[in-house]
């Protein structure tokens, strides 16, 4: 790659070119689809959740290179976390894990956070008993 100039850093490019967890989950337990008014990007995250833990995550993204990389990274980071942990997930984690994003592209990582949270809310809406428990954990 040394002779190649890239708009984003190597990690971002790598996730854009070879996105992890791309696709949909059959029988997903929670699905979130969100859009960014500013740039028109749309991101969808599906989660498989078992015993309060995110077992698997998938994304589909209509958006720029950093949006795709952000969703790839977000799904990668979130796997194995508990619902409570996932609820505190912040876009900054995506930015850090990607080794930074250009200032005008930070909103892509925000979109990933939002898609994840939408998927979790979708799951919790179907499991109100867990919602209460999660809130209890979060407010500790």
């Amino acid at each position, binding site marked *: 790659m040394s002779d190649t100039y890239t708009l984003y850093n190597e990690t971002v490019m790598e996730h854009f070119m070879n996105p992890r967890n791309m696709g949909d989950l059959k029988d997903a337990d929670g699905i979130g689809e969100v859009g960014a008014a500013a*740039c028109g990007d749309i*991101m969808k995250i599906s989660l498989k959740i078992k015993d309060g833990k995110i077992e698997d995550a998938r994304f589909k993204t*209509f958006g720029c*290179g950093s949006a795709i990389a952000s969703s790839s990274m977000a799904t990668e980071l979130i796997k194995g976390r508990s619902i409570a942990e996932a609820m505190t997930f912040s876009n900054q984690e995506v930015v850090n894990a990607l080794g930074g994003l250009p200032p005008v592209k930070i909103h892509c990582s925000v979109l990933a956070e939002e898609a994840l949270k939408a998927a979790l809310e979708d799951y919790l809406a179907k499991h109100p008993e867990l919602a209460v428990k999660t809130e209890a954990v979060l407010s500790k």
Partner: protein
Amino acid sequence: MRRVYLDHQSTTPVSPEVFEAMTPYFLEAFGNPSSLHQHGLRVRDAMAKARQQCAALINAESPEDIIFTSDGTESSNLAIKGVAYANQRKGTHLVVCETEHPSVINSIEFLEKQGFTCTRVKVDPEGMINPEDVRAAITDKTILIAVHHANHDIGTIQPVKEIGKIAGEKGIAFYVDCEASAGWLPIDVQSWGAQLVSFSPHRFYGPKGVGVLYRSRRARLVSILHGGVQEGGRRSGTENVPAIVGGGLASEIALREMPKWIEHTGKLQKRLWDGLKKEITYIKLNGPEPGPKRITTNLNLSTEFIEGEGQLLLCDMNGIAVASGSSCVSKSLKISHVLAAIGLDHALAQGNIIMSLGKDNTEEDVDYTVETFVKIVHKLRGMSPMWDEFERGILDSVIAPTGRGKSFSQHAADISGKAAH
């Protein structure tokens, strides 16, 4: 990996012949044209020649009508503001086409803050302006009509001759921005009745760092960069001699080679669009079909259900250089105002890229591009929630509506109404 440069509308390489002609003006003939000694006089001669070459490209009455600036943007600014300030006692109203380049539009916005007014004439869905709409926009306070020759974004060729006739009847100065056409379409300032025309040699194998503004002696113009008496007092500042020399030669070459270049890029343009449209579903050409209404260098494409930057990046990773959105402002997030003006659906505007051809592109380049682009679209659609939802009948296509599902825009509004920032 094959390398295919398809961004000739952004800029072109300097041709070796032009570079060679420029070389002495860095090292030996380095003088300042304002100097009265050998070093100054020698480069004055060189500049006089370049002025003739530039004048010839656009059939200007005289080399004296050529003003050298630093680039197309400065030329636009000088044409718009220079005419406005020079005529403000006569009137303060301007008429422009709504799809002008930002260097025109933003110059006008600046003037509006200072009390000038402007009518932005609308275009049709192909980006074409109707001369009668220009006529209707004229008031007795109108001092300038500005319409570009070819559109930088969607390649539409405007009826400048007809508009020039109207301007002539009304005695109003007429400015034609030829940045996107010079070198690729014949320009005749005299038969157009244009008093101001701008172009930049870096768009046709000349160097960056020089812009040209033609100004007929019939048009009043004041300078906007103040200082010394260079360019007859109309553009102060030490002249960029090597670039001026190179720009002159590039103009001469373009004038000579233009018929060949037009034929060549016209063929490739057709081959490229035919190939893409055959292999890819739900793809749309923005602006007129290849033919007399469209410049041969430009294809502006919207591929549905996927976004533009991703297409551009994957093209680039496969050796193909293309542009996304408005070629000169690609750092901004906003969608091109030209695409908005032709009423393009927001979803299609987002999936927009521009491929622009040059004299050195080949049929092999085109075929490789088609082949690669097909794979790219496939890959990005595979990642796109919109494509999935379209296939499942939840969303409908804008390009070829099936009658099933809601519109992309409706869907986007629904979900981004939620929590998007």
